[in-house]
C-alpha cells in the first residue's frame, strides 16, 4: 500500500506538469486574441483558475476548522494548517496576476475597488492565520484558536465572490468567451486545481508525520520518568 502511495506521487506531479504545458500551448497558439483587451486577456486563463482554487483551499480550512471544533482531533488541525498555507500562497498569486493585468488594462497596478479590496483582506486574513499559529505554544490551544479564526476568515470568501454583483466595481464581473477560449480555460483548471490538491496533501502528510514523531518522542521521554518516579510522584 505504501509502495503504491510513493509511486503515485511522481506520476501525479508529472501529469500536472504536462497539463501545464498543454495549457500554455493552448494559451499561446490555440486561444484567439480577444478583440477589446488584446493579448493581455490571456492572463485570465491562469488568474481565474487560481482564484477559484483559492476559494476551495479556504473552504478546506473552513471544513477542517469545523471538524476540529466538533471532534477535537488533531488531524483536522493539521489539515487546516496545510490548507491555510496553500490559501495564502494562491491568494498571493491571484493578487499579483490581477495587478499585472490591471497595469495593462487600467493603467494602474492597484485601485481600491471592492473586489480588489476584499481580495487583499482575504490575503491578509490567511497570512495572519499563518502568523498566529506558531505564536501559540500549546497544541490544543493553538488548534482551538486557529479553528475559530479559520471559520471567521472564510466569511470574506463570499464577499470577494459577490463584490462585483453587489457593488459598483471596475473589475469585470464576467468576460464573454469564444469556444476556443472556453476550452483553454477549462484545460487550465485541471493543473491549477491538481496543484492545489497536491500541495495540501503533501503539506498535510509532512505535518502529520512530524506531529506523530513528536508525540512518540514525548511518550518515549515521559514513560521512563513515570516508571522511575516514587508512587506519590506518579500519582
Amino acid at each position, binding site marked *: 500500500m505504501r509502495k503504491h502511495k510513493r509511486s503515485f*506521487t511522481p506520476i501525479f*506531479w508529472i501529469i500536472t506538469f504536462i497539463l*501545464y504545458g498543454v495549457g*500554455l500551448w493552448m*494559451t499561446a497558439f490555440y486561444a484567439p486574441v480577444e478583440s477589446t483587451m*488584446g*493579448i*493581455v486577456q*490571456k*492572463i485570465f486563463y*491562469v*488568474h481565474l483558475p*487560481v482564484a477559484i482554487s483559492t476559494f476551495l483551499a479556504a473552504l478546506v480550512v473552513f471544513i477542517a476548522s469545523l471538524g476540529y471544533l466538533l471532534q477535537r482531533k488533531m488531524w483536522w488541525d493539521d489539515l487546516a494548517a496545510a490548507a491555510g498555507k496553500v490559501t495564502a*500562497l*494562491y491568494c*498571493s*498569486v491571484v493578487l*499579483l*496576476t490581477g495587478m*499585472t*493585468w490591471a*497595469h*495593462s488594462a487600467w493603467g494602474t497596478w492597484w485601485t481600491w475597488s471592492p473586489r480588489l479590496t476584499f481580495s487583499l483582506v482575504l490575503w491578509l486574513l490567511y497570512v495572519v492565520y499563518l502568523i498566529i499559529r506558531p505564536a501559540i505554544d500549546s497544541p490544543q490551544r493553538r488548534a482551538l484558536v486557529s479553528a475559530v479564526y479559520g471559520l471567521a476568515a472564510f466569511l470574506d470568501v463570499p464577499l470577494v465572490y459577490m463584490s462585483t454583483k453587489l457593488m459598483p466595481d471596475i473589475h469585470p464581473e464576467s468576460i464573454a468567451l469564444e469556444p476556443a477560449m472556453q476550452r483553454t480555460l477549462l484545460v487550465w483548471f485541471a493543473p*491549477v486545481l491538481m*496543484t492545489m490538491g*497536491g*500541495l495540501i496533501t*503533501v*503539506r498535510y*502528510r*509532512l505535518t502529520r*508525520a*512530524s506531529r506523530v514523531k513528536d508525540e512518540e518522542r514525548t511518550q518515549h521521554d515521559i514513560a521512563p520518568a513515570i516508571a522511575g518516579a516514587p508512587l506519590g510522584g506518579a500519582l
Partner: protein
Amino acid sequence: MTGMQHVFLAYTIAFVALWGYALALLLESRHARKQRSSTEV
C-alpha cells in the same frame, strides 16, 4: 511595458510561486522519508 510583457510576467509569477512551493515540499518530503528509513534501519 507591452501587453506581451505583462502576460509573460503574470505567468512567470504563477509558475515560480506554485512550482517553487511544490518543489520545496517534494524535497522536504524526500528528506523526511530518507530520515525515517535511516532511523528504521
